């Protein structure tokens, strides 16, 4: 980190001793997993910097933003409309949920067989290790899965900052109406908390900002379709993870700069691994930062990850919000429509997800799919079986969490799967 943030962390209320421990583990892991990669694009330097400052400079920026009366809105899910938060000049951040931190604390409130993502966000908060959650003015939850729904009730008692949006479980007309109403209510809530009114022109501007970010991520994703892939799956995953933290305008610019470089690499045939290296599409539950486990295993086993059919991945950027609206109400409808396009496994039926897996497989010229569900994430675990029956390409289903307990078995299974693709 570029400077000492201890005073800031203390003021925010972090557990300083434990926090130092966390940062040192994170920095070691980053060195081993990321900085040891060869032939990385120059453009990754910015993202290396962001990750090194994930609890430093970015936190200071948030702290400064709050001084200017901007509101910090924390989320855990791609269903929360970022357009509305940016329309009141709010800061939109994903909260810490990707490491095995504070699980003993979390297990005082939730059962042991709760998915790692839920236990992690509870654990991060309860052990005073997530500066983002401490800086939020509002934490927006959503009724995607049962685990999260019930955990948010408990999280509200702990933080007193929860606001939950109801995500329907189907996509019928009545569900779409309900969701539009939820989007309207969220707009009111954001206006109330920020003391600012969302006007048509503000909403148009914020929609454009978010769309530009999605377009940049789409561009990055498309570049991974080339063989050899110009960027490692690990690096692309990192960019997708940072999409939830960074300032959106700056982030978009940096992703586009990276893509310029990658296009140059493609022209020269310069790849992260030799042409013909087995190409894996990963599909399933989200990979919250710093969950790099599966990507690291795959890429250390002689394959390259070319895409993530995941919330931290294509589900976050595939659809754009239509910008051609002429009234605020119409804008809200477009936003509601855009978010209903997301194919989360919490919906039933969810046929579009299978179609999306198939088309991503084709577009990215993958050789095989590894479906990865977080353990106890029932919706994705169930869909993993469903997908298996509907596809005709190499496919392997795994269930795992953030621990290293199953590393040996996982490595053997992944390596054996890659052997069958050669």
């Amino acid at each position: 980190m570029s400077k000492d943030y201890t005073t800031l962390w203390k003021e925010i209320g972090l557990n300083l001793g434990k926090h130092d421990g966390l940062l040192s583990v994170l920095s070691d892991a980053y060195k081993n997993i990321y900085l040891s990669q060869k032939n990385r694009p120059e453009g990754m330097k910015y993202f290396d910097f962001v990750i090194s400052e994930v609890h430093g400079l970015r936190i200071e920026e948030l702290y400064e933003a709050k001084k200017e009366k901007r509101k910090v809105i924390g989320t855990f899910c791609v269903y929360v409309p970022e357009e509305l938060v940016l329309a009141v000049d709010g800061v939109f951040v994903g909260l810490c949920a990707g490491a095995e931190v504070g699980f003993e604390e979390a297990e005082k409130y939730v059962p042991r067989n709760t998915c790692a993502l839920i236990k992690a966000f509870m654990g991060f908060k309860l052990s005073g290790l997530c500066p983002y959650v401490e800086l939020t003015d509002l934490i927006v939850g959503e009724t995607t899965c049962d685990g999260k729904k019930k955990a948010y009730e408990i999280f509200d008692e702990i933080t007193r900052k929860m606001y939950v949006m109801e995500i329907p479980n189907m996509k019928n007309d009545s569900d779409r109406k309900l969701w539009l109403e939820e989007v309207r209510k969220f707009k009111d809530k954001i206006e109330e908390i920020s003391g600012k009114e969302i006007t048509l022109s503000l909403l148009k501007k914020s929609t454009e900002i978010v769309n530009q970010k999605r377009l940049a991520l789409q561009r990055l994703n498309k570049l991974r379709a080339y063989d050899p892939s110009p960027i490692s799956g690990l690096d692309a995953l990192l960019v997708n993870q940072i999409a939830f933290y960074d300032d959106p305008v700056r982030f978009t610019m940096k992703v586009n700069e990276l893509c310029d470089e990658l296009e140059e690499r493609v022209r020269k045939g310069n790849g992260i691994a030799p042409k013909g290296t087995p190409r894996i599409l990963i599909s399933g539950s989200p990979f919250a930062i710093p969950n790099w486990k599966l990507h690291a295993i795959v890429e250390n086993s002689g394959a390259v990850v070319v895409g993530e059919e995941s919330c931290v991945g294509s589900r976050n950027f595939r659809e754009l919000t239509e910008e051609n609206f002429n009234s605020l109400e119409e804008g809200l409808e477009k936003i509601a429509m855009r978010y209903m396009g997301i194919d989360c496994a919490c919906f039933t039926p969810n046929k579009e997800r299978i179609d999306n897996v198939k088309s991503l497989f084709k577009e990215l010229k993958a050789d095989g799919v590894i479906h990865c569900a977080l353990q106890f994430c029932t919706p994705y675990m169930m869909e993993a079986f469903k997908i298996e029956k509907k596809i005709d390409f190499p496919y392997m289903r795994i269930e795992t969490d953030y621990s290293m307990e199953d590393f040996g078995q996982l490595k053997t299974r992944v390596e054996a799967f890659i052997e069958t693709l050669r």
Partner: protein
Amino acid sequence: MSFLGIDIGSRYIKAVLIEKGTVIDWFKIETSYEPLNRSLEILKKYSPIKAVATGYGRHLLSFNGNIPTITEIKAFAIGARALMPSCRTIIDIGGQDTKIISLDERGNIKKFEMNDRCAAGTGRFLEIMASALAYSIDEFGKIEGEIESPLQISSMCTVFAESEVISLISKGISREEIAIAIHRAIAKRVISMLKKISLEEDIVFAGGCAGNILLKKLIEIDIGKRILIHEKHHFAGALGAAIYAEKSLIEEGGEKENEKVYC
């Protein structure tokens, strides 16, 4: 021109040396707490032209000896076919993993299933249960008794199953009956994995636990098909790695392919 396959398992290290398509030596030793040293000694002893490592500890040799590796799954696929050329399905119950491998007519891997984390229902589980009932591991697989007994061990977790066994002992149930129930529990787990693939014959039981006749019998009864066991079942992985070593050197242009008569 000899080739070595070395299978570093969680309980035993197995090595097979081949030359011109014939096995020169089979070697097996406990993995112990220093698998790297033991593996390096084996390499030194045989000093082959090329070695390939497989098994749980394969990366020890790739990091420390620059030895190429293949997974146990691939090694068993090659090795089991060499031992029994008609093989289409492999059941491998090792020290800490259970694997089912389905092969096509030419011996390529079609699909595989493997346990995803703990040692539940594996060789280590059998060892612990045998010792809880004061059997040697050899005696354990040869127990004879009422196979159809309704007694169930419901837990597959080694820790919980052991306490279940202890409570059955304290109820006065005979150790033979408990032992059979333990075997039935493991067989059930293997059978559920077998159901996830299309079960083609011949079915070959390889790996350490293939020495357990009772387990074989219980699986056969359920699936209604015959299971074959080769006397060198322990060495399927090491043999597969040795054959792979020879084949890969040939592909690199190092040597002409021999007529293969492995066993």
